């Protein structure tokens, strides 16, 4: 589901780089996020914050810094998650078809291709001052059994600024992004290793 969010991040990046041009080769987006999750059966919302790196063609490194360190690396081949150095968990894309479906949507979005999203969502759009708001509603019943959200609202300024996700079970996620930069994709050694770790 977060991969969908990623797709939208990319979409926004495509907008700022002069639509409908996609992110150029060798470009990357870096930024910070704050997340608030409200889940059924939990007395308090779960809060977290951290930073991310998105490289077209390679994937995403999503690092939660607080309340504790969790690094997630997502590539077309699969997903690796490492929680505070307590061993990593790896899921191959074949074992989680939805993951790659969502990753494919991200790729489509990177190409500035709204149509890829339109096959799964009805998209409405309105403007409010400097911001634009997109509302995505699934066209069909969720084939993944709850992984797709009921509705997503994205607020976009220069980059994506806010994402609100309503899920079918009554849970909701609220993400806000800050300090986003579009730069070249010169990766640090640890980032290269992170991407390599997700290869099968």
């Amino acid at each position, binding site marked *: 589901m977060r991969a969908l969010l990623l797709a939208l991040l990319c979409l926004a990046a495509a907008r700022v780089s002069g639509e409908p041009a996609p992110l150029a080769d060798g470009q990357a987006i870096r930024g910070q996020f704050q997340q608030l999750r409200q889940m059924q*059966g939990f007395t308090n919302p779960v809060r977290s914050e951290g930073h991310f790196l998105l490289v077209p063609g390679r994937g995403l490194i999503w690092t939660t810094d607080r309340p504790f360190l969790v690094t*997630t690396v997502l590539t077309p081949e699969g997903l690796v*998650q490492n*929680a505070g150095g307590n061993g990593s*968990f790896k899921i191959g894309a074949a074992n989680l078809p*939805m993951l*790659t479906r969502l990753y494919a949507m991200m790729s489509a979005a990177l190409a500035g291709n709204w149509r890829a999203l339109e096959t799964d969502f009805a998209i409405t759009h309105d403007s409010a001052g400097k911001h634009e708001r997109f509302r995505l509603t699934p066209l069909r019943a969720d*084939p993944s059994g709850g*992984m797709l959200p009921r509705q997503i609202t994205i607020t976009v300024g220069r980059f994506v600024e806010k994402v609100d996700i309503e899920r079918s079970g009554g*849970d909701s996620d609220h993400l806000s992004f800050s300090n986003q930069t579009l730069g070249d994709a010169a990766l640090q050694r640890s980032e290269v290793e992170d991407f390599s770790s997700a290869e099968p």
Partner: protein
Amino acid sequence: MTLPFSRPWPAALWLLLVVAALLHVGFAMARGLPLQSDIMALLPREDRDAAVQQAKDTISVTLSHHVLFLLGHTDPAQARAAADRLEQALTGAGMMSAATDIPSATAIQQIGRRYFPERGGLLADADRRRLLDGRGSDLASRALSQIFGFAGFADGRMLAADPFQLLPAFLAGLPLPTNKLHLDNGRLTATGNGLTWVLVSGQLTGEATSLAFQKRFTGMVDAVGNSFPRGVRLLRLSALFYAQAGADRAITVSSTLALISLAGTALLLLAAFRSVIPLALGLLSIAVGFVVALSLSLLVFGELHVAAQLFGVSLIGIAADYALLYFAQLFSGQPNPQKRLAKVFTGITLGMLTTVVGYLSLALSPFPGLHQVALFSAVGLFAAYLTVLLWLPRLDRLRPIALGRRAVRWAEMLGAFWLAPVMRRWRWASVVLACLIGLAGYRQIHIDDDVRHQQTLDPQLSAEQSDIQRLIGFAPTGQFFLVSAVDDEQALRDEEILGVRLADLVVTGALSFWNAPARFIPSLERQFANRRLIDEQLIAPHFAALRKTLGMAAVAPLPEPSGTLTLPAVMAEGGFPILNVMVLQPGRHLVLLEGITDMAAVRHAADGIPGVRFVDPTLDISALLAAYRVRALWLLAVSVLLMAPLVAWRYGWRGIPLVLGPPALAVIMAPACLGLAGIPFTFFSAIGLVLSLSIGVDYAVFCAEDERLNPVTLTGITLAMSTAILSFGLLAASDIEGIQTFGAAMLVSVPLSYAMAPLAGRAQKRQSF
């Protein structure tokens, strides 16, 4: 002497029979000759252990019916379109049913619903190992990262039901093959070589070994492939393509060899007799032999293997001998055809009998394909013999011709070498030379029983297979473990023990992947053990802290396993088609293996687990080839024993070494010569020697029938040897090792037999027909 069957009615009766055979073959061809190309059909069925045979058949059928394509293009949409077209064409024509071992998202959901109530007893292998190692904290951290990390699929309800997210981990860890594939627009897709590759996977609906089906299938694939836009690449993987390429190659080789053999024989006969009549009548006897043999083989076996057809080429050379020896009597000056026939009657009859004995001894081998060759050759020879006897003197209007001076000189030299007292010293020198060659050669003999060497795989298809293995990681092997237990529960327990060892082998790289029913459904014993392990290593030490960190409300405890998540129950859901392959019957399972790099380590993985055994069909067939190579050599001795009474009846006991000695020596010397030439000795070499013995005995018998070694007789034998070399020698040019070594053995031993045959001229005739 006049022969009893020189009257017209036997010839007329034979004509009736031949016409009947011709009609039968004609009708069979009109319907399409039932030809077989499966190389395995040539090999014996192992009937010692029914369970092993059943397992091998299952693997063989599964592998031979599986067909897989990758369609590549720089544009994923083009690759998908090409995949759609190919799949629609093949399924639309009813030649393939689309099938994949990777369950659909819907199937995963169904299975998830079946597994969900049993989640208390399900642990992914890696999770179980962590808990056994006392590392429950890893799983607690993972549960937190599911909520705080990216792609956290867990929602509040899921966390309440399964706080440590053990069920998703179990489902994500299911051993689904080809883990380099992902779903893209509903199609399994891989990337590599700068292209997007889309998978088309299915099961053949026709018989993979039927030549007709192979042609239709490959024809359709080629037609669709040719209509693709530029830039689309097609990779193929199926036993069918290999079989079709092999059959194509065998038929091409067979046709080419037959053509060259016929052309060579024709030229030889024209040069020798300066008339086309011997050639035409010789061909007639061969054609009759071929048609009668084909008809009877189809009546007896219902079909004919292309390899039997290939060996049938050899028949051409041998059947020509009878006509040749008959026509060689033209050089004797005898004007009456019936009298010319009478002169060679005993020789060709004895020769035919000993050769048929040699050919029929092939039927003693356990190879079904060789039974066809035995019957085909023996019947063909007998029919050609009858044609020479009954028809040739009636059709032959030739006048006697003089033997050329060079032929006379050559025949005299050859005869003198073995019979003239002045050549005694040279004869002994040749014996010493033969012994030296034998000593040197036998030390150089390289025995090769590896069945994989006996056939040549098409290099283009092999390259495509390597590409497919690299792109999607699919590397099926014929080796497997067979688990035999009293029931499914015990079989699953055995697989769990084996699984620990195989998982270690995957870590060391001895194996890339393994699959067993127990990886989908743990034994009930394991489910209950997992439940205890989760309680002790996860719930008790870590659940309270997790709840506090997340602020979770009270949750119900994990359910106990109900004891109903069993193999038949999951198979009834139908979500995992691979289970139908791996479960042969209750308690009898297969453990499939991929990418073996250390065969010895894998082979020993089942040591000490009762009821689990490693099966390597390729190795088993190679071992059988080795056993039957030895058996074929015994067959040689048996052939000599079977021929000995016939020879003794005609030439007395002293005649046995003189008549059977030269061909026997030739087949003893031949392996030494092959060793020196660096040609491996195979089962097929041994079979070649069995046939060579029969042919060599023919030559010796003709020499024995003519004590004075008339140049006419020796010229006839020289022509016979030349035609035999034209057909057998050509087989040595084949690039299929089995056929090549067969041909090479004949190429060496037949001339040796021929060179020594005049020694039989010393034998004294005692009985006459």
